[in-house]
């Protein structure tokens, strides 16, 4: 996935494919959470990644395959302190990506949609890219750096008071 990996950084890859039904949302979140753990993310960072993945997977289930089911693919790669996640569907695609990523924009105002999916992904991850072709599908790529803002005090606190 990433061609610029430094030689001394250990990389790890995973790939998931599942049916676009909402039952699989907790499944996708648990998998990505478990995959991140060797990088020692903070609880807050872990929650950011889980939430962003949940948003992208929800988009596949609700918008990419609105009538019926398709395949959602979640690929992830870790190297150093970063995770690169790629979520792909072969659904109906997005007509206007710039519009879709605007806060509060939703194609389904009649439903209870907040229109905040892409806004959450952008706020919770360090980089988000959306590539879509109507009729062919959508690829969302996201990058997160772990322990980015950690300082000595936080490391101290993470040991708890019993240490």
């Amino acid at each position, binding site marked *: 996935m990433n061609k610029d990996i430094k030689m001394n950084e250990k990389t790890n890859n995973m790939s998931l494919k599942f049916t676009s039904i909402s039952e699989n949302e907790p499944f996708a979140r648990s998998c990505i959470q478990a995959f991140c753990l060797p990088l020692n993310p903070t609880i807050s960072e872990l929650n950011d990644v889980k939430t962003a993945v949940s948003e992208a997977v929800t988009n596949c289930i609700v918008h990419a395959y609105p009538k019926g089911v398709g395949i959602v693919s979640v690929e992830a790669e870790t190297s150093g302190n970063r995770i690169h996640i790629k979520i792909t569907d072969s659904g109906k695609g997005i007509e206007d990506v710039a519009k879709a990523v605007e806060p509060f924009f939703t194609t389904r105002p009649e439903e209870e*949609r907040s229109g905040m999916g892409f806004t*959450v992904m952008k706020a919770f991850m360090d980089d988000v890219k959306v590539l879509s072709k109507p009729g062919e599908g959508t690829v969302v790529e996201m990058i997160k750096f772990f322990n980015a803002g950690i300082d000595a005090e936080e490391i101290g606190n993470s040991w708890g008071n019993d240490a």
Partner: protein
Amino acid sequence: MEIKFKNVSGKLYVYLYGELDEYSSRSMRNLLDNMLDQYLQCKFVIFNLENLTFMDSTGLGFLIGRYKRLKKFSIQCFIESPPVSIEKVLELSGIYEIMPKVS
């Protein structure tokens, strides 16, 4: 996901347990609305999120949906005790402007 209710002198407390996402909100929406319909005489509905372990933007839509519905009956909605993990998504959305936070 699980929902519990407590009615205290005109205030209805709605306790949400577990994860609030697309999966759980699909099954919980009607269930909660049917319950809320029995309390339309109350003035305030307080959504207690203390025991919510996960929420994404679908959860925001879920809460805003209940807010819109209850507003028609002049019922005011509040959010109580959200955990730190959920606070970020709540803050980002600006939901506290319509459903103020109480602790």
